[in-house]
């Protein structure tokens, strides 16, 4: 049997495994995945590989005593063994006061994240796509270092209350850094898609080449507060720190940027500019994601920040029960809504400012304010009177995405981006921000 099961095959297999269960409650998650990658540096392939993995996870519960066991061996013997093992672990475990039991069957939104084009990628296809990129950098005597990774897989689950869910998906991520031979210029591009037919490595490579050659001869500007235009790749690594911290429990416990004086939370408060709208939706056509969480909770469209106001926080089923509210699972995708302005139009409307194409090494400095530090990288440019005047040396910044979104000037048209920090894909607009804080200069190229 193939590692990637169809819905019918997955259901039949899960039903077979569930029959071994003697626990009060049982939940089984299964996944199969094929991954292929190609890595290159100095214009030559450095490593390549492929991985085929499958996993079966069994969670058994006796009352509130819960045990989890996993196996990657797919045989009847192994299935029975892993069920027994999870039951033994459950019997030995202390009671988990936060265990809330398994769910009954749910209705899910339709989401199409599986594309035959991506599932059918062969090693030759991968090599040809990368060769197109390499030809361009070699022809211009530039040094390319890149990484291609495609994934094709599925996940499914079944529990003892007959909740069944299945979701197949495909993804491809391509990233490339192009450097000039003397190391004075560097440019980057990253693209992520569910459907590989949308990925044009040649066009992507041209962007990295343009930034690489365009960043030669960077001039130093004094650190300080500047109007910046963040390309979506740069904005993503800042805003995702808001997404990661939407947990209600931490906010209620007083240890989140969403906590406030008197033990209250900022749910319902306006925290950023009213033009900011952030939501998740598994059925988004350009960023499809699984319509169910790992425990079978349905993923709905959730508005997290609407017109600048915190509309929802993520409640685990346990915390929701304790607080008497509806559970809201952490989302599988995030979409930052935007306007219609193109990056070019945003540059044209800027009197003085800095175009930031990528940010790097983002770390949280203060969890209370979400103050982040990090640096610009691979192409930073000075804008004057609506035009890019010259490249500038890289800066270190210290800025909170919350403060930044209060200093919003314009949101552009969202596009799908890959976070260079977490590898997550988002829908993200370019954004113009005033008074962005650069605190020092870096000599790095």
């Amino acid at each position, binding site marked *: 049997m193939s590692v990637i099961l169809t819905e019918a095959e997955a259901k039949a297999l899960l039903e077979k495994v569930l029959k071994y269960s003697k626990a009060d409650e049982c939940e089984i998650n299964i996944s199969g995945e094929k991954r292929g990658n190609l890595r290159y540096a100095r214009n030559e392939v450095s490593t390549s590989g492929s991985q085929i993995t499958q996993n079966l996870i069994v969670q058994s519960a006796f009352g509130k005593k819960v045990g989890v066991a*996993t196996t990657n061996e797919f045989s009847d013997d192994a299935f029975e063994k892993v069920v027994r093992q999870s039951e033994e672990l459950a019997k030995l475990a202390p009671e988990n006061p936060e265990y809330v039991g398994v769910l009954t069957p749910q209705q899910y939104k339709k989401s199409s994240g599986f594309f035959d084009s991506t599932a059918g990628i062969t090693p030759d296809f991968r090599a040809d796509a990368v060769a197109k990129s390499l030809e361009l950098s070699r022809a211009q005597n530039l040094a390319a270092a890149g990484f291609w990774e495609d994934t094709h897989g599925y996940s499914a689950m079944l529990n003892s209350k007959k909740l069944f869910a299945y979701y197949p998906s495909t993804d491809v991520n391509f990233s*490339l850094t192009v450097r000039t031979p003397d190391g004075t210029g560097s440019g980057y591009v990253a693209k992520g898609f569910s459907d590989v037919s949308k990925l044009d490595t040649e066009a992507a490579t041209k962007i990295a080449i343009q930034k690489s050659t365009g960043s030669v001869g960077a001039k130093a500007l004094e650190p300080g507060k500047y109007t910046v235009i963040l390309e979506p790749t740069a904005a993503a690594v800042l805003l995702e720190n808001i997404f990661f911290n939407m947990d209600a429990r931490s906010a209620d416990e007083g240890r989140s940027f969403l906590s406030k*004086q008197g033990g209250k939370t900022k749910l319902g408060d306006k925290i950023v500019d009213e033009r900011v709208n952030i939501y998740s939706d598994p059925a988004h056509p350009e960023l499809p994601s699984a319509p169910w969480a790992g425990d079978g909770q349905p993923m709905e469209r959730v508005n997290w920040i609407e017109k600048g106001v915190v509309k929802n926080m993520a409640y685990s089923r346990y915390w929701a029960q304790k607080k008497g509210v509806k559970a809201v699972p952490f989302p599988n995708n995030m979409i930052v809504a935007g306007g219609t302005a193109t990056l070019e139009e945003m540059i044209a409307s800027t009197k003085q400012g800095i175009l930031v194409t990528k940010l790097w090494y983002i770390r949280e400095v203060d969890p209370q*304010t979400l103050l982040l530090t990090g640096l610009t990288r691979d192409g930073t440019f000075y804008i004057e009177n609506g035009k890019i005047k010259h490249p500038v040396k890289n800066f270190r910044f210290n800025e909170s995405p919350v403060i930044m979104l209060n200093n919003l000037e314009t949101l552009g048209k969202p596009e799908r981006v890959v976070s260079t920090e977490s590898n997550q894909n988002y829908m993200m607009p370019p954004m113009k921000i005033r008074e962005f804080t650069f605190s020092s200069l870096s000599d790095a190229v």
Partner: protein
Amino acid sequence: MKRRDFMQMTGMGMGALMLPSVPIFGNTVSSEHLLEPGIDVALKKRYADIALNATKSKGATYTDVRIGRYLQQFVFTREKQVQNIVNAESFGVGIRVIANGTWGFSATSDVTSEGIAKCAETAVAIAKANSKFQKDPVVLAPQKGVGDVTWKTPIKKNTFEIPTAEKIDLLMKVNGKAMENGAGFVTSNIFSVNEQKYFASSDGSYIDQDIHRIWPTFTVTAIDKAAGKFKTRGALSSPMGMGYEYLDGLASEKIAGPNGTVGYRSSYDMVEDAILAAKQAKEKLTTKTVLPGKYDLVLDPNHLGLTIHESVGHPTELDRVLGYEANYAGTSFATLDKWESKKFNYGSKLVNIVADRIQPHTLGAVGFDDEGVPAKEWDIIKDGILVNYQAIRDQVKIIGGKESNGCCYADNWDSVQFQRMPNISLRPGTEKRSVLDMIKGVEKGIYIIGAGSYSIDQQRYNFQFGGQVFYEIKKGEIVGMLDDVAYQSNTQEFWNSCSQICDKDDYRTFGSFFDGKGQPSQISAVAHGSATTRFDGVNVINTGRKI
């Protein structure tokens, strides 16, 4: 790291945006299963020979085989609760070959004669397929075979033999004491790892190693609900290449510091540290905010280790210098011309940085690396001058080296080995000097303990570091705690401002248990030793904001 592996451990109920940062390899098993012996060494040798013969007959000119059993036990608790106990085992074989002058790698969990023979053939086929891209053939620095040898981390108590209940009791005591002393919340963990690795190569080496590591740690949070404020303080432990004896808390391994602080050498008192952490976190809620400006910094080894890691460890990795990591971690300012000049002042004359894989109790200590090279020690910076890099067998020739430094590592049998950081340490000062002696000489300074936020550019020039605890020094004395402190500097400027280093009695190690590198990303564990060190006139910023 392999996203799917840690997604499976999130269990249940978390979306993809809440991935935990802890990588788990392989299958979860019972704690008893972790104590079962792996396959016999004679069988491992037989399997290795099957692979070596198979690749040779298909045309490989070099082969190494790693049969690995990787065990992990991670215990997670918060306040009065055990959140999770993960026992994991990963077992399989990775085969790396050179054919047509090109690397090829393949791995399988089917550890049988047939599975290994098939995997070996795949490795050669991949090498041949990739050779169409290759311009210059791979050339390895010679390594004489060492025959049949064994090496084991010299542990006193095997962590995996300690009952899980004993570990939970300890963590519950840690959490309880922290709560009693002012913590609003506390999480505590014990991470333990055992790598049972068998390495064989066509050079004639058959190396059996049993490597142990442990990391006990916690985070204490103090809350002022009325003011809507919270502050954290992390543990001042270090991950170690030791067994459970690290948690004995021996008085002989403690170094008393100023203001009731304690430094821990190769024995850690977790409960004592949790009590102090809770008190310090609470104090941070009301402590005064730093005035930005230039300060002389007195940096504790438990803080300085991370600065060494980022500003010396990574920039002196030869693969980075050459551009192999350009698309992700970046390149390096420590370019070959600087090394060739033999006069690049990386730091002041006091700065001597040594690389090693032999320091007892450290994360980097092994008998042999993952390409069969014996562990050794070598200088990276001598009297302030950059003198060497970290290099492995296929790259050391680029810097005129005749033998590898022995710092090749793969985080699992199914990952391909590549250059990873050995221990990188600052040698202690030769003059007798304690921390108190050092503080006495500082007019306006800050004493920093523990690692906080960290960020550095892709060529390792400009960095910013926070910490866990900050003490203000005025006219040779500590006058109280400070908050919102971070320092920014440039690597060369910073190391040239190094003006004093305490002596060997203050020497301790810091470590990183999950250091990431490469695409797809792999983890490794690495230690950094130093004594408390002074840096003059460093730029300190204030990180306090209002939202």
